[in-house]
């Protein structure tokens, strides 16, 4: 096979090549072209990034995931990309959440409305003041502390490796109020590790990672408590991957937990 007969869909060739499943007869012309064709080489680098992102967001099928772990990740160069990609994608997820938070907070539209309809805004503000006053009186009468403390919810999740995501037995949680914290308590039978790591995934995309979590004894079993800010939990299905941290600082997958956040 010469260089001109390379698969026109070079992206597929690159994926196979990077995962170590491109036949030798196709590998040689591909590698030779990499050395002399800059655009072709750029294509390889972009495919590397795509593969890393797909792996990190759990989108690779079983065969490709295994090849990724046994072949692609062998080299230091690819390990660098994986480590960076993990941090980068998590950063972007947080940035996205932060951006959404800011978007809700934006006030120019209110100011514009005030400029255009001052009477309407004044009336709305008056109604608002009255509502606040009524709620304050109600709370005072019920002797509920009016301090704006951060609400904390707790929910215990049983291991669910054998359970399909979204099945009837999925634990449900009503969308937590803003400015609250949800403690997801992951049950484990034995405490075999010095600490634990939990990856929070939504629709197979890594959303956040919680490191250095201890296990606490609870009756006949243990729990790993993950405090998740409510801003990270929107309506949808979530998967929590629990890994134990070995003394060598390597993570070992233990179990997964399914959670559905409802309206």
């Amino acid at each position, binding site marked *: 096979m010469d260089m001109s007969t390379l698969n026109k869909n070079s992206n597929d060739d690159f994926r196979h090549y990077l995962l170590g499943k491109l036949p030798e007869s196709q590998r040689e012309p591909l590698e030779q072209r990499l050395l002399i064709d800059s655009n072709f080489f750029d294509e390889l*680098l972009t495919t590397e*990034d795509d593969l890393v992102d797909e792996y990190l967001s759990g989108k690779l099928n079983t065969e490709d995931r295994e090849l990724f772990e046994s072949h692609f990740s062998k080299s230091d160069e690819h390990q660098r990309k994986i*480590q960076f990609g993990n941090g980068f994608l998590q950063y972007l997820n947080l940035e996205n959440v932060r951006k959404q938070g800011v978007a809700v907070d934006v006030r120019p539209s209110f100011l514009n409305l005030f400029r255009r309809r001052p009477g309407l805004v004044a009336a709305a503000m008056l109604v608002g003041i009255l509502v606040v006053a009524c709620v304050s009186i109600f709370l005072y009468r019920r002797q509920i502390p009016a301090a704006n403390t951060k609400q904390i919810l707790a929910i215990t999740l049983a291991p669910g490796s054998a359970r399909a995501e979204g099945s009837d037995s999925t634990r449900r949680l009503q969308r937590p109020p803003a400015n609250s914290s949800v403690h997801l308590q992951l049950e484990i039978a034995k405490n075999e590790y010095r600490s634990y790591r939990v990856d929070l995934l939504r629709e197979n995309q890594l959303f956040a990672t919680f*490191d250095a979590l201890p296990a606490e004894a609870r009756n006949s079993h243990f729990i790993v408590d993950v405090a998740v800010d409510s801003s990270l939990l929107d309506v949808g299905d979530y998967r929590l991957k629990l890994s134990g941290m070995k003394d060598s600082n390597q993570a070992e997958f233990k179990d997964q937990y399914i959670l559905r956040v409802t309206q």
Partner: protein
Amino acid sequence: MKKNWVLSQEAFDVLLDWLDHDRDQAGRRYEEIRERLVRIFASRGCSGATDLADETINRVASKVVEVRETYSGDPALFFYVVANNIHKEYLRRKPPPASPISTSPPNLEKQFYCLEQCLDQLSHENRSLVIQYYQDDKKAKIERRRQIAERLGIAPNALRIRACRIRASLLECVEKCLEFDAD
């Protein structure tokens, strides 16, 4: 290759001259070939791909005086022949098995800090491009990328390569930032 052969300045100059008579052009070609050899060894699943690439270059440099008169064709392909030999030797040495993937950086908080610093060093256009390009998921991502390419007036593939280059520069910058902090 002669044992204990060391790449001398003279041999390196001959190698560069073989790649291109223009010294600057030769330097760029040398860097390109080295980077691509590293990727080739990495893609073959070799650990220590950089060392193998350097070993290849040293071996080519040790042969270049005798080869340059008779060899015709792109010198990069001669590197490839030598790289294949180096790879066979590597396999004979029984390379270590793959170590488990560690996706978790040693200090995520520090990496976020470095990412912020490095993103700030990018031009406004590149910063916004790399954030928008890699953000979101599924259909939203595809649509967003289409819109970015349209806005910039470039083909989707050109956008893909541009985003990849910015990401690569971020990786370099973050690694330097983390190293600096560790010192």
